[in-house]
């Protein structure tokens, strides 16, 4: 079979797997995601026609919900792949599958990241200005230029590895370790670098004392190590129920244990930040005051979220730290949801908005996302989840539902 025929066969075959042979829940899920995407299409059309004035971002708070989500998802993308390390160290049996699902999640997350950046741009039509060769990249000084490079590279690497693994399994051939292993090993420092570079994007701006802290990048990595695995743990449990995917309880508990260390470290770093700000009590404290309370006697709209995030983080830390609760299915899953929500708030809301409030001249603009913004964001998540769902469906079909392929596992 020629490569072209093989490829076209792969494409049509996977397309069939993606859309056929699901149960009602599966189609309902797809329908829901499609609905999300369609409504977001209208919302984005509105934004495109009138400009970003349809969001609630303004000059004082010039980045908002979109960039918050972007930052969160960079973390998800990074951590999904970092799971390879413990999988290898502890020799979890289905290591190839763990790696594959991690990479698929990374791909979906990066796609969402790029979409969030695109919808946040004032002139998305000019994206070609960023393309090396024909555009005008501001290297080496602009962190955002580096970020766009590492994110796209990371996407390409993960997409390559994941599709190559699935492609080989589809055709029942053995994947070439000389291709996969170096790429997987490369993707590990890349995972660290995408989140580090993204942290540096904020970290490097002296104009925003809230971000201008050396432990921002470590905090990013630590919190990402919580949110990415939280998603995967839930996914693994679902897959274990609905497919032939097997993962031992010990592996899941091990991930939960590692997450508790990551969360503990994350809380420690956050505590260090809080100590520095509150004890030194400089003018820079205003941003934390806005985060947790409010300014000029007015309650901050984000304070309830900030407290929820902190409480979720502490509770889930203990849930995962105590062996009894991390081995209990119910408390473990509650912990996963809490961790996910905690980090989502921390990155999506508590990182960006207080950085801009008050603004550089001390003026307070209380930003909360507009309905249009929420709708567009829902659509981006819709695209990401749809992509992830389809990719997982295809992978599961190939790896577990076709006996001849599974034999090659």
């Amino acid at each position, binding site marked *: 079979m020629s490569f072209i025929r093989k490829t076209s066969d792969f494409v049509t075959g996977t397309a069939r797997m993606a859309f056929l042979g699901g149960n009602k829940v599966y189609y309902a899920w797809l329908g829901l995601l499609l609905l999300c995407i369609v409504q977001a299409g209208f919302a984005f059309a509105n934004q495109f026609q009138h*400009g970003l004035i349809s969001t609630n971002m303004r000059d004082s708070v*010039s980045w908002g919900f979109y960039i918050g989500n972007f930052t969160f998802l960079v973390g998800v993308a990074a951590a999904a792949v970092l799971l390879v390390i413990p999988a290898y160290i502890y020799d979890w049996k289905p290591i190839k599958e763990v790696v594959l699902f991690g990479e698929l999640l990374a791909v979906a997350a990066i796609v969402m990241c790029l979409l969030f950046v695109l919808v946040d*741009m004032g002139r*998305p039509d000019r994206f*070609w*200005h960023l393309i090396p060769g024909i555009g005008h990249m501001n290297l080496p000084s602009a962190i955002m230029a580096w970020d766009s490079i590492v994110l796209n590279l990371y996407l390409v690497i993960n997409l390559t590895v994941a599709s190559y693994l699935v492609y080989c399994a589809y055709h029942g051939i053995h994947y070439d370790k000389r291709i996969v292993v170096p790429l997987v090993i490369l993707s590990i420092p890349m995972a660290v670098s995408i989140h580090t570079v993204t942290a540096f994007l904020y970290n490097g701006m002296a104009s925003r004392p809230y971000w201008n802290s050396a432990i921002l990048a470590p905090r990013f990595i630590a919190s990402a190590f919580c949110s990415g695995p939280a998603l995967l743990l839930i996914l693994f449990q679902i897959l274990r129920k609905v497919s032939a995917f097997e993962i031992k309880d010990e592996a899941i508990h091990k991930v939960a244990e590692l997450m508790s260390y990551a969360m503990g470290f994350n809380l420690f770093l956050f505590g260090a930040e809080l100590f520095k700000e509150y004890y030194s009590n400089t003018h820079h404290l205003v941003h934390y005051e806005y985060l947790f309370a409010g300014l000029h006697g007015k309650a901050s709209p984000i304070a309830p979220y900030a407290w929820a995030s902190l409480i979720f983080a502490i509770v889930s830390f203990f849930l995962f730290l105590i062996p009894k609760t991390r081995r209990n299915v119910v408390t473990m899953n509650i912990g996963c949801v809490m961790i996910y929500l905690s980090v989502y708030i921390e990155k999506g809301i508590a990182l960006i908005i207080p950085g801009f409030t008050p603004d550089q*001249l001390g003026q307070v603009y209380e930003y909360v996302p507009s309905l249009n913004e929420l709708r567009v964001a829902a659509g981006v998540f819709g695209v990401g989840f749809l992509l992830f769902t389809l990719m997982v469906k295809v992978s599961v079909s190939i790896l577990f539902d076709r006996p001849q392929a599974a034999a090659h596992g």
Partner: protein
Amino acid sequence: MIDHAAAPLAIPEPPAKGHTRREALILGLFALAGAALTTGCASDKTALDEYLQKHFKDLSGDELKAVLARMEKKYSEQYGKHVSVSATPPLEGVLFGYALDLSRCIGCRRCVYGCVEENNQSRDPQTHWITVLEMDKEGGVNLQDANAYYDHETVPAPGKFYMPVACQHCENPPCVKVCPVQATWKEKDGIVVIDYNWCIGCRNCIAACPYGARRFNWGTPNIPADELNPVTEYLGNRPRQRGVVEKCSWCIQRTRKGLYPKCVEVCPVGARKFGNLLDPDSEIRYIIENKRVYILKEELNTQPKFFYYYGL
């Protein structure tokens, strides 16, 4: 260009000039995106030229001329009067500097609106390049107590002082450093400029500016035709587009021709000073050498060429 305000494009005959290979490459790669995003104007050569326009610094002399002519035509048609667009180069041996006397400014905001008119800032949605902060004399420069929205019968209000803030034209500008596409840069005469046609609207510069000096066109900027200042500069006060960043250019359209910026001219108390830092006889040098100077957020090492001072 997808501004709807620009809709009445009479599709001017383009200069007979084929697209270069580079343009063709870009075109090939992004025809789809471009066509979709220019909302069906892909057949319109002007819109296409605009979409494919190179970075300002990459334009050859002839290309720049064509770009300026295209813009003059477009703006003139849009506003129903002749609008000139020049690209005056920096003057040799000139490094601009600005000084503002904090002990004299009374916070009357004449500069704010003088600037709006001179520099064609959008009236609705409202854009102001200058923010005038009111602070307590007792507290000194404390931005956390600053109020930009004061509304008194008369100024100065008792016990208050005023600090107008706009682009500080830093020698070490953080906004320039972070721009991913080099759409903003520092010119030889020290003015930090923006190529509105290259800006992608990512707003990283707004985040990076410690002075809150940069403004984003959240909606489509709007200037009544009779209020448009028709003497414009490419890197300055020409009409802007939706989705790009703008800011004070020290009235590049005036200062590069030897005139004072508009804010200097309209200030009723003479608190605003402008000149050539390289000229030892200039008032700006006199002030720096003889007065107590205050640099806003000096600790950030942005090295502003905007010097607050205390004349009294």
